[in-house]
């Protein structure tokens, strides 16, 4: 069941590759805009890099949240999922995981290349990628709650950002903080453990909250 839902969503993403690429290009463009707006001075860019990459990842992941449930809602497959005898939370977990594989993982893979644009040292690139790897699943999980709550509402896309972005703040602080700490020559293990803790907490609670939200939204 869990496997089926992941397989299904990945198959759908394969058939609609443009959706995946749009998110990725959005990420790249946002990151590339910053040097154009603040100037090409390398020292400044280096200090800004972790924050810029993280904020862009936040926005890119959030932009693709709309697709998580809305297509399934419109064609009636979501209704069928709610009627499945298996646990809806597990199913939601599968969908969040598929969302992460399709939108989060490309961002993680792209991040080191964008980091080079900002002249980040090799070790900082490694830390940046690791934090994104741990942090982007949290974004998908928390985002699924917002996506489920705004299902079928007018202006749902803007609304979802209002609901979800404040909840992303802790991940942002520690994700970008880890890279800064590394560049300042301080240890970053504490940051990673905290992001890991956020991941565990959201793995436990978010699918459950999303499942209840879906039941409310489809009533």
């Amino acid at each position: 069941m869990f496997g089926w839902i992941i397989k299904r969503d990945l198959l759908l993403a394969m058939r609609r590759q443009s959706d995946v690429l749009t998110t990725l290009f959005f990420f790249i463009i946002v990151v590339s805009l910053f040097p154009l707006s603040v100037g090409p001075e390398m020292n400044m860019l280096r200090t800004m890099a972790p924050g810029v990459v993280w904020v862009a990842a936040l926005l890119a992941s959030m932009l693709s949240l709309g697709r998580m449930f809305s297509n399934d809602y419109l064609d009636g497959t979501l209704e069928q999922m709610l009627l499945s005898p298996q646990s809806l939370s597990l199913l939601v977990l599968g969908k969040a995981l598929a969302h992460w594989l399709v939108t989060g993982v490309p961002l993680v893979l792209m991040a080191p290349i964008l980091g080079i644009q900002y002249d980040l040292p090799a070790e900082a690139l490694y830390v940046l990628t690791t934090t994104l790897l741990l942090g982007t699943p949290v974004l998908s999980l928390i985002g699924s709650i917002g996506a489920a709550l705004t299902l079928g509402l007018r202006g749902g896309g803007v609304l979802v950002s209002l609901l979800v972005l404040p909840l992303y703040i802790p991940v942002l602080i520690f994700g970008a903080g880890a890279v800064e700490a590394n560049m300042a020559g301080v240890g970053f293990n504490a940051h990673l453990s905290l992001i890991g803790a956020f991941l565990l907490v959201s793995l436990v609670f978010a699918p459950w909250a999303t499942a209840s939200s879906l039941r409310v939204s489809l009533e």
Partner: protein
Amino acid sequence: MLQGINLACIRGDRELFKNINFSLEAGGLMQVHGPNGSGKTSLLRMLCGLSNPAAGEIHWCGTAIRSLDGDYFAAVTYIGHLSGTKDDLTVIENLCISSALAGFEISVDQASEALKYMGLSERESLPVKVLSQGQRRRVALARLLICKTPLWILDEPLVALDVMAVKLIQGLLEQHLQQGGLVVMTTHQEIEITTAPVMQLQLA
């Protein structure tokens, strides 16, 4: 088996229906009638457990469905207005995946056989988006051949179907009822079920 007790439905400020009572036994079919906007779909969605009645209770085998949860969902197959198929997936992928989500994992052969019965064998590997309305409906209804649940809840299953397909569905319903299954459905078309008593429920 399936009982509705004093059911009421409120949409916004309007009360669609209230004090709906019925009791459907094994092998029985209930047809829900009523003009547009009388709450037929709302009633069916309640019976599935998708929404809660504003008042009253629904019982399955003597237990309130709210406390049954997943066990109840395992006993129900619901086919609603929306076909529940993905446009980008092929016909056979759609059937395999929707059956698996409903708890029935099937082999490709079983799926092809069901599609053949529904007259879709030549279109098996086409994406659903190229099919006509009637053909999409057939894909959705093919689930009835696979999901062997005792209770079927069908919202306008005959819409967009041609005469041949209507016959096919009639046959399926009769067979299901003979095996002791239950059916709750809405339809604007006439349907002749000769083998079982048909209960009529009229919504104002």
